């Protein structure tokens, strides 16, 4: 499971990071009219295994240690680099996502790619597989550290803040009929609870209840609020709106009873299960409503078993 997550994270990072972030900017280059024997000193002194061949600022080829060894074997040390280099090498753009580079390494099996600017095609760096790994490890370390700090701070909130009673309230404003953002408040809230160090099983239950309450506000009202109150012994979800109200609460609580119009049902909502779901995944639920005035739903989950 942990392995799966880190794999995912790395994939995510390869989309987030650019070639520019991983490349080495200080590139050693050679010119096409230099002789092969010039490479000998460079390779010995600077310890590199291949180099872009640059003419007037543009990359025209790539010369590698393998090319050099071949020339050495055949006694062709005075030949010009341009005769032995790989011409028009595959290059990467500095602004490409790193995932493109990963794919190109797989596709071509080369050891390195020159990195150029998209505009002007000027050489700006070079990228090896090792550079990608270094960059990913560094980024992972930084992010891991940041998340640790976030989680540490959040999960100690109830211990660090001394009061007779501590209560953390998170409030989310819900826009009516905004189906594109439906579920967003529940997602945010789930992340927040996770950071607070709440048990995953409880976070899951709260997330279901919050999602259903959020959807109800979106489907049936012009908007409202979803808030969650966390204290050391329980989490309380409150969903309130000022609109149209529920005529018969007992009926609304019946499984499959729904007043949702067809177009809402076509999106998969309005199955008449929302309130039942909330009831089933929380320890207490209370619904108060007045037609024309609004509805307030309150649901409680106890953190240490029901008290």
């Amino acid at each position, binding site marked *: 499971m942990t392995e*799966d997550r880190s*794999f*995912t994270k790395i*994939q*995510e990072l390869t*989309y987030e990071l650019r070639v520019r972030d991983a490349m080495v900017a200080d590139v050693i280059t050679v010119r096409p009219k230099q002789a092969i024997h010039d490479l000998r000193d460079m390779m010995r002194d600077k310890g590199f295994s291949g180099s872009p061949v640059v003419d007037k600022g543009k990359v025209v080829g790539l010369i590698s240690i393998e090319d050099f060894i071949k020339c050495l074997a055949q006694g062709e040390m005075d030949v010009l680099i341009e005769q032995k280099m790989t011409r028009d090498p595959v290059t990467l753009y500095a602004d490409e996502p790193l*995932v493109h580079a990963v794919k190109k390494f797989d596709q071509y099996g080369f050891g390195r790619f020159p990195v150029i600017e998209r505009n002007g095609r000027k050489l700006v760096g070079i990228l090896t597989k090792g550079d990608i790994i270094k960059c990913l490890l560094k980024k992972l370390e930084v992010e891991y550290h940041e998340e640790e700090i976030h989680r540490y701070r959040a999960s100690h909130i109830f211990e660090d803040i001394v009061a007779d009673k501590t209560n953390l309230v998170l409030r989310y404003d819900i826009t009516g009929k905004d*189906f*594109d953002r*439906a*579920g*967003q408040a*529940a*997602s945010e809230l*789930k992340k927040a609870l996770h950071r607070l160090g709440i048990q995953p099983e409880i976070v*899951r239950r709260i*997330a*279901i209840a919050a*999602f*259903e309450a959020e*959807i109800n506000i979106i489907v049936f009202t012009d908007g409202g609020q979803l808030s969650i109150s966390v204290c050391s012994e329980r989490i309380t979800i409150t969903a309130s709106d000022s609109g149209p109200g529920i005529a018969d609460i007992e009926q609304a609580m019946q499984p499959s009873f729904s007043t949702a119009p067809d177009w809402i049902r076509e*999106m*998969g*909502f309005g*199955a*008449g*299960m*929302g309130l*039942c*779901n909330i009831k*089933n995944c929380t320890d207490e639920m209370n619904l108060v409503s007045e037609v024309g005035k609004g509805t307030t739903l309150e649901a409680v989950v106890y953190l240490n078993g029901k008290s």
Partner: protein
Amino acid sequence: MKLKEIVEKLNLEVATPASDLDRDVSGGYASDLLSDVMANSREGNVWVTMQIHQNIIAVASLKELAGIVVVNGRKPEQKVLAKAEQENIPVMLTGLQAFEIAGRLCELGIRGNTK
């Protein structure tokens, strides 16, 4: 079974190339009612549906499902797929109907959840 094996064996089209297919599938659930999925699907399930609205991503993410198989040749809009990639929820497409794909998943050994 890993999701990527299912993708290969059932010839599913992965509509979210950036999402992670290297995850274990705990079972399957088929439904077009979001609240039903919220109530009855389990973590790691592959979800068979014909819904293509953005909210399927929210549901799959909240329930930590392994992925969504969209049936009947339907395809979610690009913004939905982008959201799916952002949440790392694989969305897979098939021209088959829900009944047929569920049957083939069962043949591969993917079962429904038992109480």
